């Protein structure tokens, strides 16, 4: 049996395919959760940084600004390491679940916390870009109709801002899917780490007893293909939206 056939036979093993599919599911769920929570936290940060300008609320502007700048200018991996040591895991999230042991769940919660914190700082800047693009007249029009500041934000400004940043947010989903591979460094259970685990034990599955170059090509090629399919679909739709803005905005 040639080494390439042996490597390909790894992917024919139903248990391994199941293992990888679960990894893909974790990658997608993790990224979507990170982006959704990132939008929530990021919007609050962006609003604080942009509009807390009065003497009383200025402290929030400073806090938001330093949060954003600190996270944007340091690597994600540093925050993953920091969260592994310092992030407190609530009791409810430390038991075994999703077919993972409780140690793995704790790792997952800590590492995803880092991903969420990091992503929210990036999204805050995206939302701020959207907020800045809403014309000043919109605020004045809202006030003149008797809306309060919060109502103006919720009903008039934020919807317009979000609509403008949909393509950028989708691009951020791509970035987050790619960033989630950083979690492979701390052996969390998403696609990249599973492929890496498989490679180190490929000798047990490929029938040749050793890890060969073809295993690298087959396993990493498979992962690359999956990432490519997901991200290319997303980036193509972003491009389509930017080309036909009328149809969406």
């Amino acid at each position, binding site marked *: 049996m040639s080494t390439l056939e042996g490597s390909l036979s790894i992917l024919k093993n139903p248990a391994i395919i199941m293992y990888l599919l679960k990894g893909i599911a974790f990658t997608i769920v993790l990224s979507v959760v990170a982006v959704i929570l990132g939008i929530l936290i990021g919007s609050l940060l962006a609003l604080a940084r942009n509009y807390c300008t009065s003497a009383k609320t200025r402290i929030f502007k400073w806090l938001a600004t330093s949060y954003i*700048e*600190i996270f*944007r*200018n*340091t*690597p*994600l*991996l*540093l925050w993953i*390491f*920091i969260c592994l*040591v*310092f992030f407190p895991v609530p009791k409810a999230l430390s038991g075994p679940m999703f077919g993972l042991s409780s140690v793995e769940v704790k790792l997952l919660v800590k590492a995803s916390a880092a991903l969420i914190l990091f992503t929210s700082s990036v999204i805050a800047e995206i939302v701020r870009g959207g907020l800045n693009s809403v014309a000043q007249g919109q605020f004045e029009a809202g006030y003149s109709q008797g809306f309060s500041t919060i109502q103006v934000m919720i009903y008039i400004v934020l919807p317009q801002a979000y609509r403008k940043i949909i393509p950028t947010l989708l691009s951020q989903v*791509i970035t987050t*899917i*790619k*960033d989630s*591979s*950083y979690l*492979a*460094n701390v052996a969390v259970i998403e696609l*990249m780490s599973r*492929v*890496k685990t498989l*490679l180190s034990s490929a000798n047990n599955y490929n029938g040749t007893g050793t*890890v*060969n*170059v073809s*295993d*690298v*090509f087959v396993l*990493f*090629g498979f*992962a*690359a293909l999956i*990432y*490519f399919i997901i*991200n*290319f679909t997303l*980036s193509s739709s972003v491009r389509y939206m930017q080309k036909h803005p009328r149809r969406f905005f």
Partner: protein
Amino acid sequence: MSGLFSLDAWEKVWVFKETFVIGFLNTITLAFFALILSLILGILFGLMATSEKKGLMILGRIYVEIIQNTPLILQLSFLYYALAFSGNSIGIIPTGIITLGFYHGAYMAEVVRAGIESIPTGQFEAAQSQGFDYIGKMYYIILPQSIKIILPPMVNQIVNLIKNTSCLYIIGGSDLISLTYSFVTGASTGGAYAPAYFLTGILFFIICYPLSSIASVWENSLKMRDQKTIDLPAEGTVNG
């Protein structure tokens, strides 16, 4: 977080300060050479994407799409393990330089492409009508105009490149993050988590913050200028 104020932990960091200096220098070296490679690739593929030759355009597109849609960590491990298992290992830092260079080269190519495409076609035609060849046209007419559009996102890419040096950890690198991690988990040095991470964070911040601030100030001033040029005729014709 109490460890951040523990004198013992800080003392440990001070004793092993060499680790951080070496890591910092490795990260800078890595980032520097990767930046040069990515600039070369970015300009090359950016020009290819805006050329009129279909074949070159497609080639540039394939490069950008493949690189941008797969994770850097995957590319790095792929190259490293493929070389290692075929017996051609070239070392961790060179592997990192090549991967980072190619990864950010794809982003630089998109930045260069957007910059060139923002120049009106009339400029290309005018240059051609004056008898400039391709190099002359690009060098004297197009690039000087597009450079101000290219620079801010390019600086942002440099910041990302510096942050991404941390991915070398997965192949056991010797960059700042990897050395910090082996420092805090090492048998004889371990435990000083808070000060070590704090120091590493500060080191990254002092390089990246000035760069990203310059980029955003630059970008904003460009935007303001655009708005002024767009608003001017409107002010004359419509009141308010």
